[in-house]
């Protein structure tokens, strides 16, 4: 029934990766020199892959749209990185990390991939320490661990609130070492705009030099996409301003399948939207929920008075506060998983109990301050409180913080097999750009783990299994007709965009579209809304190509043109996300369909009909994409309903 071959190796789960490595084909050192690999994106996955491949002897060309590889948005990850080291002696193991990740993903991830992830997790920590990543340590000089949501053990390694930064700088330094040795050629301020396929295999990319506007052709025996997630589809998200889906979307249009686009993670603790000029949302670390209590007023009139500025949160008496997470989920309280906490906040605000602008709830530390003393709270969360105060101009030691959920991470992405190869031979997707390891919901501190696992320890092996066939393939000149055609597509697209000459800026369009996405394909979805989304987005897509205005020239630095290219793709992706959400008639993880919930409002999975990966195939402009289903088989885990009440 399906064209999808996940290529999962035979044998017992714990031996699959070992067996794969033992029997895969390799490329010998003298042949590696003859092979070029293009890596697009220099975040955790892209930088670590580029460095590792170059260390082995391959010629790597690394691309990023920023001015330096060190700017990639992996840098913004705060919390930490998981590994099954079991240093605290609290019963952790590879199996337990594997199990927690599958369960956290609401049983929508591939067993074999996740087990491999857990297996290599320990190597990542060793590697990073050897690179000089300054992880937090105890007084004895050993590495410190902390606990994170969705786990009963402390397995999270961290470097203050800047773990992502430190890991990225580690990968960046490894990358720069290879740039120095000549193994990597770096193309900064370059954006990939098209994929070149020759005889059915990925053989290069078309990229735009963002400074000169020049359209360039680059050849590679294989192409790796490490361009991150698509959270910016919603306009407001915790992603960077430049984070985009364009590379992934272009390869989708060239035949790579896009899997589970509807799985989007909404982080419960972000600083709420405060004005229509706002350009992005700022995350406050999940760790705040360890000591903060989340509440809204019990009485609607109190909430209204607060919104009108007539009452302050401190005026609300204890008995008039509704600690709704503690009320609904007595066992886990404020520490329920991200998706559950987010939906509960939305439910209260929709019911009219929201504070601030109406779309915010309180995260209150007064109990913690009374219990532990201000200095302890300051020690634990001082930098976060300071950040909050800088942004909101309100002192969270005195009045409760206001928070609201925001788009944070996308579990969906380009479909890949066990080798991380997409449905186009020679084309790979790693890190957040692929769909593989987090199922329908990602646990905290797992994204960094996956990005680095793919880049350091998985792709450098699996890509050789493919390249072993290519040692005889000479480098192409990029004058081949396939390169001509791919470039022509891009020049004509850019010319079309430049000539629209409409009235509205790209940003204003993106904002309008993002709001619709949030309303119709956001935290809670229903059939009606999703159908509306499909028709609205189609109209918006058409009007986008008539209404927008791009000032300036195409042959110079032109951020408006860059944004237009990206937003055009976001709008098309929005349609696919709505389509996938409509197709998935169940609630699981980050995907919540209002029609599919239990009596008390919890997500209701439908394992008999929807225990599959939904991979979409592009069929052409204006045509409906085809859904391919990859069945998920759980041989080692008992599938259960997640329960956070008892």
């Amino acid at each position, binding site marked *: 029934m399906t064209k999808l071959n996940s290529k999962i190796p035979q044998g017992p789960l714990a031996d699959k990766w070992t067996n794969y490595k033992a029997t895969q084909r390799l490329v010998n050192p003298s042949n590696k020199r003859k092979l070029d690999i293009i890596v697009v994106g220099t975040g955790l996955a892209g930088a670590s892959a580029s460095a590792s491949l170059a260390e082995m002897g391959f010629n790597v060309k690394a691309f990023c749209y920023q001015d330096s590889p060190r700017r990639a948005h992996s840098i913004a990850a705060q919390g930490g990185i998981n590994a099954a080291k079991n240093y605290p002696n609290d019963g952790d193991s590879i199996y337990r990390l594997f199990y927690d990740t599958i369960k956290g993903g609401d049983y929508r991830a591939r067993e074999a991939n996740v087990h491999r992830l857990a297996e290599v997790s320990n190597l990542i920590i060793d590697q990073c320490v050897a690179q000089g990543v300054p992880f937090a340590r105890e007084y004895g000089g050993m590495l410190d661990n902390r606990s994170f949501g969705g786990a009963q053990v402390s397995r999270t390694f961290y470097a203050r609130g800047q773990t992502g930064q430190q890991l990225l700088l580690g990968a960046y330094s490894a990358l*720069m070492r290879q740039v*120095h040795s000549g193994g990597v050629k770096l193309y900064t301020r370059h954006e990939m705009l098209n994929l070149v396929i020759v005889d059915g295999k990925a053989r290069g990319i078309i990229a735009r030099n963002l400074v000169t506007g020049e359209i360039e052709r680059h050849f590679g025996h294989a192409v790796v996409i490490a361009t991150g997630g698509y959270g910016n589809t919603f306009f407001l998200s915790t992603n960077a301003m430049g984070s985009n889906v364009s590379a992934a979307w272009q390869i989708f249009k060239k035949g790579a399948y896009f899997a589970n686009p509807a799985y989007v993670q909404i982080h419960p603790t972000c600083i709420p939207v405060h004005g229509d000029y706002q350009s992005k949302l700022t995350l406050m670390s999940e760790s705040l929920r360890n000591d903060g209590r989340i509440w809204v007023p019990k009485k609607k009139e109190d909430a209204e008075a607060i919104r009108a500025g007539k009452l302050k949160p401190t005026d609300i008496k204890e008995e008039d506060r509704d600690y709704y997470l503690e009320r609904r989920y007595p066992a886990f309280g404020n520490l329920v998983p991200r998706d559950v906490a987010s939906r509960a906040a939305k439910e209260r605000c929709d019911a009219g109990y929201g504070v601030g602008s109406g779309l915010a709830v309180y995260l209150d530390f007064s109990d913690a301050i009374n219990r532990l003393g201000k200095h302890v709270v300051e020690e634990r969360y001082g930098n976060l409180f300071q950040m909050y105060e800088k942004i909101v101009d309100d002192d969270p030691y005195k009045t409760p913080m206001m928070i609201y959920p925001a788009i944070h991470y996308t579990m969906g992405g380009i479909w890949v097999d066990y080798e991380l190869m997409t449905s186009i031979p020679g084309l790979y997707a790693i890190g957040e750009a692929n769909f593989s390891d987090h199922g329908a919901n990602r646990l905290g501190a797992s994204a960094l783990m996956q990005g680095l696992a793919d880049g350091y320890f998985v792709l450098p092996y699996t890509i050789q299994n493919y390249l072993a066939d290519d040692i005889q393939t000479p480098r192409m000149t990029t004058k081949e007709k396939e390169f001509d055609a791919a470039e022509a597509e891009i020049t004509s697209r850019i010319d079309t965009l430049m000539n629209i000459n409409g009235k509205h800026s790209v940003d204003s369009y993106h904002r309008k579209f993002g709001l619709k996405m949030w309303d119709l394909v956001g935290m809670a979805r229903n059939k009606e809304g999703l159908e509306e989304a499909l028709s609205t987005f189609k109209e918006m897509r058409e009007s986008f190509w008539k209404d927008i205005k791009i000032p300036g020239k195409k042959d110079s630095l032109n951020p408006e043109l860059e944004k237009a290219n990206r937003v055009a793709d976001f709008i098309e992706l929005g349609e696919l996300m709505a389509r996938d959400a409509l197709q998935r008639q169940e609630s699981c993880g980050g995907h919540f369909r209002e029609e599919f919930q239990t009596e008390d409002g919890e997500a209701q999975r439908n394992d008999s009909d929807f225990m599959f990966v939904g991979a979409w195939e592009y069929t052409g402009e204006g045509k409906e994409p085809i859904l391919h289903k990859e069945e998920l088989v759980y041989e080692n885990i008992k599938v259960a309903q997640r329960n956070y009440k008892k």
Partner: protein
Amino acid sequence: MDLTLKIWRQENAAAKGRFETYKVTNISPDCSFLEMLDILNQQMIENQITLPVCFDNDCREGICGMCGLYINGRPHGPDKGVTTCQLHMRKFKNGDTIVIEPWRARPFPVIKDLVVDRSAFDKIIEAGGYISVSTGGVPDANSIPVPKKKADVAMDAAACIGCGACVASCKNASAMLFVSAKVSHFANLPQGKVEAKERVKNMVAKMDELGFGNCTNTGACEAECPKEISISHIARMNREFFAAKIL
């Protein structure tokens, strides 16, 4: 808030630049500085006044190091310990005139308007800002204990975001704080000791070659660094350098 903006405009690296004056009105004090510029650009595009102002930015949460504007004589503006993207308009007064310039240093040539080329920083890191270990074959993470104090100092230094405010603020356009942060980060860790001498020599040589100025211990870099990195790291780098070259 109503504001007058004097912004450096420059077509491209070769063109001659100039200051242009623009007005923005009705700006919310809760708006961030870059959002204020977004509003200005929006007006320019929709009213077809002139080309929007180019400025670098990405994460907008103060960690990627991409943004950096020289605002009223100060890199990243008047607030302390923040990047331009975290600067909020409440730090200004209604009716203020704000002068916005790009980073100025010969190794940071202007690309367009307020966008400068900071690839010189990448070149310095390329010259030695790493520990030469390849993927795989490394010892267990806990096999070498690192004193907590040392790890903390290393982390202080490693917090550098490479924005270039130190160079922009230094009267000599010196990159010593940036280079020393990386040298000091590795010098405090046992893993970094192995090639410490080569590292500091190569990085300092590259820094000199790229045309950055010299440190006169003025301390402007430390005062303007959005991550508040201390010039004690510069002293450490000097020690490391002397140890490498003389001892």
